[in-house]
C-alpha cells in the first residue's frame, strides 16, 4: 500500500509511543529495578545448588553460564514486556475504540507502531544496562560475547518484540468477550514468561517438556535472544530457529486478524 502519507501516519504513531515512553520513563526504571530481586534470589539459589564445585554442570549449564543466563534473561524479559494490552482492553471496555474506528487508521497498526516507539526508548536505556551487565559478567565470571552474537541478538530481539506484541495482542482481544481480563493478563504473563525461559532455562523442565516448549513461539521472546547472546545456539540451528520464529509471527498475526474481525463485529453489535 504505497499511498502518500501512509508511512508518515505510522511513523507518527512510533513518535507518539516514543514520547509516551519518555513521559513514563520512571515506570520503566522501576520495572528494571524490580529485576534485581529475582536475579539476586536465583543467583543465591544457584550458589547453593552448584555448591563448592563451580565446574559442575546442571541442565547443560555451568555455574557461570547459569548466572549469566539469569541476569540476561531477566533484562530481556523486562525489555520485551508489553503493557499495551491494558490500553486495548480499556479501549474495548470503555468504548474509546470508537475514536479509532471512525478515523482512517488501522487500530492494529496504531498499537503496533506506538509499541515500537515505546520500545525504542527502552531499548536505548536497556542497551546501556546490558553492556554494563555483560561487562560485569565478563570481569567476574569470564563470560564472553562475540560481535556476531551481538548482531544476531539484535535481530532476535526485534523478532522477540514482534512475537510478544502479537501474543499479547491476541490475549488482549479476548476483551471483546470478557469484560474483566486484568487478572487474565497477569496469569497469562506468568505462564508465558515461564514457557519463554524467562525464569529458568527451559532445559530445567526436562528434555521432553523442553523440546516441546522449544517448538512454541514463547521461547523466542526470551530464551532464544538470551542464548544467542551467550553464544549457546549452535550455528547450524540459528537459521532454522529464526525461520520457526518467523513462522510463529505470521501464524499469530493471522490468528490476531481472525480474532479481531470477529471481535469487532461483536463490538459493533453489542455497542457500548
Amino acid at each position, binding site marked *: 500500500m504505497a499511498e502518500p502519507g501512509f508511512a508518515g501516519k505510522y511513523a507518527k504513531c512510533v513518535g507518539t509511543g516514543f514520547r509516551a515512553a519518555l513521559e513514563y520513563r520512571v515506570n520503566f526504571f522501576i520495572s528494571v529495578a524490580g529485576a534485581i530481586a529475582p536475579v539476586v534470589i536465583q543467583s543465591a539459589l544457584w550458589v547453593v545448588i552448584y555448591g563448592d564445585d563451580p565446574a559442575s554442570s546442571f541442565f547443560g549449564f555451568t555455574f557461570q553460564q547459569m548466572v549469566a543466563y539469569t541476569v540476561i534473561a531477566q533484562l530481556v524479559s523486562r525489555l520485551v514486556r508489553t503493557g499495551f494490552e491494558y490500553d486495548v482492553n480499556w479501549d474495548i471496555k470503555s468504548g*474509546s475504540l470508537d475514536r479509532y474506528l471512525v478515523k*482512517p487508521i488501522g487500530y492494529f497498526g496504531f498499537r503496533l507502531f506506538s509499541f515500537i516507539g515505546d520500545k525504542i526508548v527502552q531499548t536505548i536505556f536497556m542497551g546501556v544496562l546490558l553492556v554494563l551487565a555483560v561487562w560485569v559478567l565478563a570481569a567476574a565470571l569470564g563470560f564472553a560475547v562475540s560481535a556476531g552474537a551481538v548482531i544476531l541478538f539484535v535481530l532476535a530481539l526485534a523478532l522477540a518484540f514482534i512475537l510478544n506484541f502479537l501474543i499479547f495482542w491476541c490475549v488482549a482481544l479476548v476483551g471483546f468477550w470478557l469484560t474483566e481480563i486484568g487478572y487474565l493478563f497477569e496469569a497469562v504473563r506468568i505462564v508465558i514468561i515461564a514457557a519463554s525461559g524467562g525464569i529458568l532455562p527451559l532445559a530445567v523442565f526436562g528434555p521432553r517438556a523442553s523440546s516441546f516448549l522449544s517448538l512454541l513461539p514463547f521461547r523466542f521472546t526470551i530464551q532464544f535472544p538470551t542464548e544467542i547472546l551467550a553464544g549457546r545456539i549452535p550455528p547450524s540451528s540459528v537459521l532454522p530457529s529464526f525461520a520457526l520464529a518467523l513462522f510463529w509471527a505470521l501464524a499469530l498475526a493471522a490468528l490476531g486478524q481472525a480474532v479481531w474481525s470477529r471481535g469487532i463485529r461483536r463490538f459493533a453489535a453489542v455497542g457500548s
Partner: protein
Amino acid sequence: MSIIEVDRLCRDFSYYEKAEGLSGSFKNLFARKTMIKKAVSEVSFAIDEGETVGFLGPNGAGKTTTLKMLSGIMHPSSGEARVMGFVPWQRRKDFRRRISIVMGQRSQLWPDLPALESFDLNRAIYEIDRKEYRSTLDELVELFGIAEQLPVQVRRLSLGERMKMEIVAALLHRPRVLFLDEPTIGLDLISQGTIRDLLKTLKGRFGTTVMLTSHYLSDIEDLCGRIILINHGVVVYDGPLSGVNEALADRKTVRLVFSEELPEARLASLSGFRSRDKNSAVFDVERAGVRAFSRRVLDELPVIDLTIEDVPLEEGIARLYRGEAPRG
C-alpha cells in the same frame, strides 16, 4: 441531492433478564432469558448538503445509536443508510476521511498528549497537507481563542476547553459531514453559549453538514433550522423547529395571579388546570376557548394578573415525545 439518506434503519440490542438476589444470579448461570430491546426502529430521513439538523429525543430514545450507525461504529440490525454515497458501517477509508464525530461524553483526544500533538497526530492520520493543516488550524485557533491551551496536556484542561479542542480536532480535515453528540453536555451556561456561537460561525464558514443531538433546546434553537424528533426508536416529528409549536398551536398557556392563595381543589375544578404555586396558577386552554375561559376566571376568581402565551417549546417537544401531536 441528499448527503445523508436513512431508510428504515433498525437496531436491536439483546440483554439478559436477571431475577433479584442470589438465587436469581444462580439461576442465571444455567438459564438466561434473552430479551430484545429495539433501540432504533424503522428510522427514515434524508438530509441535504449544508443542512444543520437537530436530532432530539429523551434519554435512551436511540439518538446516539443512530449517530453511531451513521458514523460507521455500529452495524444496524436491518435497514439501509448512505452517507455521501457510502455505506457507513463498511468503514471505507474514503468515508472515514470525510466525516467526523464528536461525542460530549467521550474524548477523541489522547489525554496524555497536549492538544497540539493530538492535532498533529490527526494531521498524519488524515493525511492532511501541511500547508492546508496550518491554515485550517490557525483559523480555528483564532476563532476558538485557544492559543494558550494548545501546549497543555488534554487531561489538565477544563471541560469547556477540552470540548473546544475536540471540535477543532474534528474539523482539521474539513469533513463534509459532522456528527455532534451532546457537544455541550456538562458545560456551564457560558461555555455552552461559547460552543454554540462557535458552531454557528462554523456553519457559515465551513459549510459542513451537521447532525447534532442535545438535551439543551437552546443549542437546537440557535443552530438548527430543522429538527428530527425520535422517541422509543421511532421518528415522531421531522420538520422546522417553528413547526413544533404550530403543531400544538391549538393550545395556549394561561397564567393567573390571584390576590390571595386559593385552595387547589377550587382551581382543579376548572378544566385545563395544570399547576399552582402559592397565589398563582397555570392552565392549558384550547385556543378557541381562551376568551370564554378568561371571562369566567375573571368573574369567579380574585384575579389580579392574567397572561396568555404560546405553549413553551420544551413543553411542545415533551408532548411530541409522548406522541400527542401528529407527525410533521
